[in-house]
């Protein structure tokens, strides 16, 4: 099921040693490099504050609005440098981000929200309608709430809306920031199935930042682990799943298998891979 990044697969996204600074003073990424091959699913893992969101923002060029900037390194999409493109130009090239924390358009209805996702599409109404139906098929819950203003839908519904909206653009690559957050377990499963589905059927590439490591590593081909703004470990998903450290800290199955949350004895001093 997992595919190793290999020479035959074309490199899609190449992030090379980027440094990101917020507000001119807060250094968050300290030289992050990663590579996403065309048609693969790559997971970005790490603790809260490790810099996953920041990395995704750097790729999709949404840093600017957060008063952040890439100060070193380069980002290339199929060999083309993209640091200076606008987010809209990136979407034109098929790269779209699902932002952390949903960011639905509060005053628009669910359906209008989804339709805005198709803003850049030029393949006609019919095709857009078709995609819309596809999204509704993925998330039936959205269909029942299609005329509600997004602000008045539940957290999970908004999350589905945000993902659906991105899919409406017919993207080549999706940057998913914590897609599973706030979703009910079987929806989480469904979301990952959708990811897999799009990946295999339509060849969409995914870069996902996820806290649900278990799920992420189950579906991803390759994974990177970030700590404090650095990549501390990378490898094929299957390999990471077997790694003892990963097991202990991210899967909660270190040592003698899965431990009850009730039995966790104390706050662990986090073990760091850093020197």
């Amino acid at each position, binding site marked *: 099921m997992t595919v190793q990044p290999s020479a035959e697969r074309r490199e899609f996204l190449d992030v090379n040693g980027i440094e990101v*600074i917020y507000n001119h*003073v*807060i250094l968050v990424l300290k030289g992050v490099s990663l590579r996403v091959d065309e048609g693969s699913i790559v997971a970005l893992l790490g603790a809260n504050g490790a810099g996953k969101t920041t990395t995704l923002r750097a790729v999709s060029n949404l840093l600017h609005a957060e008063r952040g900037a890439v100060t070193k390194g380069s980002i290339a999409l199929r060999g083309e440098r993209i640091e200076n493109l606008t987010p809209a130009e990136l979407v034109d090239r098929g790269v779209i981000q699902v932002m952390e924390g949903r960011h639905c358009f509060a005053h628009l209805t669910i359906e209008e929200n989804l339709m805005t996702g198709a803003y850049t599409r030029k393949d006609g109404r019919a095709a857009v309608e078709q995609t819309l139906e596809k999204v509704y098929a993925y998330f039936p819950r959205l269909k029942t709430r299609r005329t509600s203003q997004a602000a008045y839908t539940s957290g999970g519904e908004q999350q589905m809306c945000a993902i659906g909206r991105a899919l409406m653009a017919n993207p080549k690559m999706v940057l998913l920031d914590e897609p599973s957050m706030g979703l009910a377990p079987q929806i989480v499963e469904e979301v990952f199935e959708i990811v897999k589905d799009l990946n295999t059927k339509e060849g969409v590439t995914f870069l996902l930042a996820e806290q649900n490591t278990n799920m992420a590593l189950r579906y991803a081909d390759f994974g990177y682990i970030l700590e404090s703004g650095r990549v501390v470990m990378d490898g094929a998903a299957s390999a990471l799943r077997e790694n003892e450290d990963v097991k202990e800290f991210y899967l909660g199955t270190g040592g003698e298998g899965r431990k009850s949350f009730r039995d966790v004895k104390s706050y662990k001093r986090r073990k760091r891979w850093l020197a």
Partner: protein
Amino acid sequence: MLYRENGQFKQTYRSDLQIFPVLQDRIALYVLLAVAFVAVPMLASDYFFRAVLIPFLILALAALGLNILVGYCGQISLGTGAFMAIGAYAAFNLQVRFDLPLLLSLIGGGLAATVFGVLFGIPSLRIRGLYLAVATLAAQFFTDWFTNRVKWVTNDSPSGSVSVGGLSFFGVAVETPAQKYLLCLAIVCVFALLAKNLVRGAIGRQWMAIRDMDVAAAVIGIRPVYAKLSAFAVSSFIVGVAGALWAFVHLGSWEPAAFSIDRSFQLLFMVIIGGLGSISGAFFGAAFMVLLPLLLNYVPHWLGLPLSTATASHLEHMIFGALIVFFLIVEPHGLARLWLTAREKLRLWPFPH
């Protein structure tokens, strides 16, 4: 390397709760105060007092008051001019009708403004954001009309313009620009300290909580009514005192236009440019708004450019507008934040991060 807080450990919460926990900052403040109270009165010219320092101080005070409302409590007000006017006219009436001493007139003016402010603050319990601006604008236009139309407000002055003279503070005449300056400075310092205490205390946190997310604030037990109205009250008190000072000390005689909507806008400008939710921001903002036009006015002179008055004035407008946009781009949180960032950099210097 001089600006470091290394080695300054805090043993008690009391010391951590100081306004300026860093020693160097405290020293800088004392130096600043010494300069302001001692050196400036000896060195500055009359022009500088009257045209720069006094308006700066009074407007800073008004901005401070407004900042409590807008910056800390998040209630946009375009009626600051009205609150100043109420302060000024109330103080005027207390002075001419009851012959109250200056300090009491000022406080009376502040109290009148407080009542007025709370009254026009009541809609804030229901109306929010820009929509609230309309309530404060109602206050503005109502006051414009009221001070113009209702005769006893101006002590039956037929033209509606009024004046005061012969100011004295605890028996000391406040006549020369330097004396006026010192009076304003003292008042401003006292208010700045009181305001700082409020905003870093429980009530300040209530204001900010209401500003940032009022539903959540209510859930943790903050009463929006109390928080909002107290912000209106405190803010209009300070603004009212500033209005009275503006009228008594700066203008001497005035007509209602002195507190028009332009003044309201100007103060809002100061607060935002200076930094919302920051006491020092009021001072930065006032300095910016008072000094910049003067500077822009003088620059062509210094450069010997033969600009006509009109051209110079239009250019001044353009540059002023452009600078506002520029500063917002550089730091949307105002000059005070810019200053903090600069300080943070200084702390790290010579390392970039």
